[in-house]
């Protein structure tokens, strides 16, 4: 039997919010008093499940991979190029599947292209993906064609093979927005822990994308070709961690969910794995095994980042505290958000 909220206790939940100091972590801001309607959420969490953080991860992986592939192409690192192109295509395929699967009406997926809405990060992202996807795909196809025996490359296949390089270049140029826009996708909501992160989240995400793609390079490319991947991985990891630190500082109370529950565990794992991966990458040198372990750590770290931030946002939406307290505080300061001409 569950005890339901007593009206007079909870209609005005005036009083100290629940203490949330698990695992010895301190809240970043003092617990604030707030009132709610029976403790029920005000804003609604997004109706999204694992699809969306997976989508963000694979989108970042695809974008980073495309850039590695293009770089590999330009700097004559064929394995890096091949791994990058194939990885971007596979990632892209997963993103498409997750994106469609997440819809309430998958059969209407194409309605995404019905309009071009500058105010909608999802619309903008769709068009970015539409620009990036075909080129990344074409580059990957050319890679596959190149794997065919010489004699079988005829007609369209030959054309595809020939277009591999320019397509790969276009894909590399359009890739960064793919990695970055997902941050706006999350931030452009009323979900407290997403919206309040809008300044740094793009940097966290591109860092995470770079770390993941670099990690994949470390993992899948022999050390002799993996130098850029290593540098990308380490750079990405450093960017991600630095941006994340800054983000938490700027988020105020809405940073709390990043430390609690599933999101907290994921974010701690993310930090540990990313740091481990970055250090490993730096120290791995010519050790293949060290490269694989570091790469895997970075990839997993990136996954954890995406899922962690996703969960933190969902939790922040489910607890009215994160909606009410910041708004109430600005009202109490006499600084409500008002239009000033």
């Amino acid at each position, binding site marked *: 039997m569950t005890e339901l909220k007593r*009206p007079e206790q909870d209609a005005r939940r005036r009083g100290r919010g629940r203490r949330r100091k698990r695992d010895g972590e301190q809240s970043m801001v003092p617990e604030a008093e707030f009132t709610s309607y029976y403790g029920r959420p005000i*804003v609604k969490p997004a109706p999204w499940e694992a699809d969306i953080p997976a989508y963000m991860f694979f989108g970042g992986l695809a974008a*980073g991979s495309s850039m590695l592939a293009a770089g590999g192409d330009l700097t004559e690192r064929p394995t890096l190029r091949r791994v990058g192109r194939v990885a971007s295509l596979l990632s892209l395929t997963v993103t498409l599947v997750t994106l469609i699967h997440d819809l309430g*009406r998958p059969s*209407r997926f194409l309605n995404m292209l019905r309009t071009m809405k500058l*105010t909608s990060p999802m619309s903008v992202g769709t068009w970015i993906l539409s620009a990036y996807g075909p080129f990344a795909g074409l580059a990957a196809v050319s890679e596959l064609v190149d794997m065919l025996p010489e004699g079988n490359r005829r007609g369209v296949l030959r054309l595809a093979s020939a277009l591999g390089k320019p397509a790969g270049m276009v894909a590399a140029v359009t890739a960064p927005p793919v990695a970055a826009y997902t941050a*706006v996708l999350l931030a452009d909501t009323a*979900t407290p822990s997403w919206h309040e992160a809008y300044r740094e989240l*793009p940097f966290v995400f591109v860092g995470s994308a770079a770390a993941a793609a670099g990690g994949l390079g470390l993992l899948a490319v022999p050390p002799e070709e993996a130098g850029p991947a290593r540098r990308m991985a380490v750079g990405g990891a450093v960017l991600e961690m630095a941006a994340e630190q800054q983000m938490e500082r700027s988020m105020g109370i809405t940073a709390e969910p990043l430390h609690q529950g599933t999101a907290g565990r994921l974010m701690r794992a993310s930090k540990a794995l990313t740091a481990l991966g970055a250090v490993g990458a730096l120290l791995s040198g010519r050790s293949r095994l060290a490269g694989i372990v570091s790469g895997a750590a970075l990839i997993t770290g990136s996954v954890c980042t995406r899922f962690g931030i996703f969960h933190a946002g969902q939790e922040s939406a489910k607890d009215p505290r994160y909606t009410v307290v910041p708004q109430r505080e600005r009202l109490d300061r006499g600084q409500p958000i008002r239009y000033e001409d």
Partner: protein
Amino acid sequence: MIGKNSLFGPIDPAVESGYSDPPARKGFFTDTSVCIGCKACEVACKEWNAIPDDGFDFLGMSYDNTGALGASTWRHVAFIEQPAGRRDGGSSAPVDLGMPSIRTSDGDTAAEEDGKPDFRWLMSSDVCKHCTHAACLDVCPTGSLFRTEFGTVVVQDDICNGCGYCVPACPYGVIERRKGPEGAKNVGIAQKCTLCYDRLGAGMTPACAQACPTESIQFGDVDELRRRAEERLEKLHADGVQEARLYGHDPNDGVGGAGAFFLLLDEPEVYGLPPDPVVTTRDLPRMFNRATAAAVTLFAGAVLSFLGRRR
């Protein structure tokens, strides 16, 4: 094309959205000081819009068993019981007899030093705010959510693909994707109040306002309703109801003023409303700027990764 106040600030939303010579903006003024909590609005809404039931769950939240606005509850009546209750010390000794303005037999008048009732039962019918700057509409990637000629915000059921983006975008937690068995009406699609767009077209009053027994829900031109709201507020203040306040009526507020606004008797969060809501797209330009910077950083970083010595 894109106006100065396209994302924030006072505008006429229908004109802003490209209607030439639209009718006067329509909206609701919900005066919760006369709401009797009968829930006629909830039922009338469901009857007209053929909304499925929202589950049969006893919530133990006073007389609220529908909980919140959602895909299958487009009007929601909140019930808040505010007793003075067991004051400091919280003893369970026999308490005062009276509720509003009643003293105890023992002549204990501590409950109402200011002469106000020491117990209130607040009721309030919540609804989609039909924001001037509607985040749900702006983030919708398909154009399913659109601005009508009446300045209201409506989902086109035949367009929505259920991406769900509007759900976290709404600062009030109004819109929701309908769950339910496959094949049921509009399952998987975002759903919310349409301000009875179909009825407005026929010159009719929205079903909830039509049914409301006490004129707690008033429908009309937003300008006129804002005037009425101000008058009502003045009247209540004159009558000593100092706690009365308007919510959502200010065109300079975070959503550019709501098409459906309220007179409340306590802080908004008491009713489950955000105290200072802001449309998220107000920050969108800055978000895109940051994202662009991040993308450039990524690109630059990638280029840098390939510079330097080869190993």
